[in-house]
C-alpha cells in the first residue's frame, strides 16, 4: 500500500498535470462514486481503477506513475460517458499520466513497444500503418512532411531503438540468430 498520510498531502502533482493539460483541472470535481470503475473493461481484467488513480493524483501521490495499472486502460471513453460530473476527461488524464510516466523512465521498455516498430517505420516511410493499402499511395514528397511533423517524437525513438536492438542481437552470442 502506498497510502499517504494527511501531512504528505499536497496539490503539487495535480497542479503539474493541469499545467500540462488544462482539461485535467476538472478531475477535482470527482465525487468518488465509482461508476467509472463499474463500467470499465480494464477493471474487469486488471487492477486498473480510475477512482483510485484520481484520488492518488488529488492527494499528490506520484506512485501512480510507477504503477503498471495506468498501462491497462482501454481508452474506450466509457468512463467519460457514465461519469455523473461534466467534462472530466479521464482518457485524456490517463494519456497524460502515461506521458509523465514515460518521461520519468517508468513507461514501457523497448520490449513492450516492439510491436510498434514496424507500424512506426511504415508510417514514416509510406504514410500508412499497414503494408499495401487499398488504392493509391501517398507521394514521396508528402511522406517527407510526416517525417517533419514527427521530428523529436517517440515514434522516431521506437524506430531507432529497433535498429539498436538488431545490432545488439547480432553482437550477442546468447540470443539465437534469425
Amino acid at each position, binding site marked *: 500500500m502506498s497510502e499517504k498520510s494527511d501531512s504528505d498531502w499536497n496539490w503539487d502533482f495535480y497542479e503539474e498535470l493541469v499545467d500540462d493539460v488544462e*482539461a485535467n483541472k476538472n478531475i477535482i470535481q470527482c465525487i468518488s462514486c465509482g461508476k467509472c470503475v463499474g463500467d470499465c473493461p*480494464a477493471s474487469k481484467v486488471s487492477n486498473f481503477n480510475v477512482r483510485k488513480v484520481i484520488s492518488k493524483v488529488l492527494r499528490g501521490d506520484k506512485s501512480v506513475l510507477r504503477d503498471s495499472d495506468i498501462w491497462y486502460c*482501454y481508452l*474506450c471513453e466509457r468512463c467519460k460517458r457514465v461519469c455523473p460530473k461534466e467534462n472530466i476527461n479521464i482518457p485524456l488524464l490517463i494519456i497524460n499520466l502515461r506521458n509523465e510516466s514515460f518521461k520519468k523512465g517508468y513507461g514501457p521498455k523497448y520490449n513492450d*513497444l516492439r*510491436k510498434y516498430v514496424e507500424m512506426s517505420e511504415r508510417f514514416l516511410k509510406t504514410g*500508412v500503418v*499497414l503494408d499495401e*493499402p*487499398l488504392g493509391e499511395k501517398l507521394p514521396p514528397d508528402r511522406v517527407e512532411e510526416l517525417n517533419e511533423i514527427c521530428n523529436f517524437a517517440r515514434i522516431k525513438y521506437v524506430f531507432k531503438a529497433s535498429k539498436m536492438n538488431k545490432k545488439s542481437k547480432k553482437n550477442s552470442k546468447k540470443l539465437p540468430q534469425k
Partner: protein
Amino acid sequence: MNTTNLTLNLNRIKEQYPENPIEYFRDKTLCLFKACLEKYFPGVRFGIEDLLLDLGLKVITCANQSCCSGTFFQRNLITRAQFGAINERNLSEINQIADILLFSCNGCYNSLLRGREFLNTPEVRTKTQKILNRLKNQGTGKNYSGKYEISENFKLKFLHDLDFFYLIKNTLLNALKYDLKKMKVAVHYGCHYLNLSRDKDTFDEYLRPKTKLEELITLFGGNPVDYQERESCCGWGASQLVIHPKEALKITFDKLKSAENVGADFLVTPCPTCLYTLSKPEYRDKMQKWYGEKLDIPTIHLNELIAILRGCEEERCITLRRKTPRIEEIFERITQ
C-alpha cells in the same frame, strides 16, 4: 459539446429533405477516408463505394491522405500537437476536393474529431501551427495558399457510415436484393462510436441509448438480439490486445460468448478494428487455449453486410478478406 462543428447536421437534412434525405448528397462530393484495416477487409471500402456509385453519387478518395495516426497518439508515441498537425494536413487536403468525409472506421472517426478538438487548447494550437509553418517553409506546400494554415471553418463535414446508412435507410432498403431472413444478429457499435461525445451537439444525444444498428438490422429483415455484453469493448482497447493479450482476449471472449449464448447467427459491427479483433482466427485459437471454449460465431462489417444484401459479387464483399469462421455460410444463407 461539439465545439468543433465538424460533423454533418443530420437533423437539418431530415428537416430539409424529410422524404428523401439522399437528395442532399446529389450535388456533393463524398470522400471516403481510407482506413488502414481496409487492407484486411476490402469489402469495407467496396461496400460503401459501390453503393454510392450505384446511387449516382460522386465518390472519391484522397491520394494525399495519410493514416489517421490515432494508434501512435494513443500509445504516447506522438504529442497532441504532432497528432494535430497530421490531422490538419489530412483535413486541408481533403477539404480542397470534397464536401463530405465518410468514415468506415470508428478509430479514424474518433482521431479526426479528437485532433481538431485539441486545437481548442491554445498551447497545442500554437505548437501545431509552428509545425505546419515548418512544412510551409520547406516548400512542398507552395501550390496554393492556406494549405498549412489551421482553418477556422471547414466546408468539409464528417459523417460516420452508420449514420449515413441510417439517414438514407429507405433509399438503402430499395437498393437491396436480399433480406436477412429473420436471422438473429448481435450488434456491436464499438466504443468510439458508442461512447463518443465529440460528434454530438447535446448531452441528450451523447447519453441516449444508441439503436441505429438494431433498427437497420430490423429493416433488413433480421432479428437483432439483446445480449449481456452488447456495450462492452471488443478487446482491442487501443492496442491492449497487443500489450496484454491474455486480459484483452478475456474481454473479447466474454463478448463473443455472450452473443453466442443468445443464439446469434452472426455479429455485425461498423468498425474494422473491432472486426479484426473479433474475427481473427489466431485470436479465436488463443481464446480456446486460455478460456477453454471454441467460439465460431461469424463476424462481419456493416459495409460488407450491405454489399451482400445488395447482391454484389462475393469478391466485392468477403472473398478477399481475412478469413473468419463460417463467414461464407452467412453469404450463402443470405443469397441462396
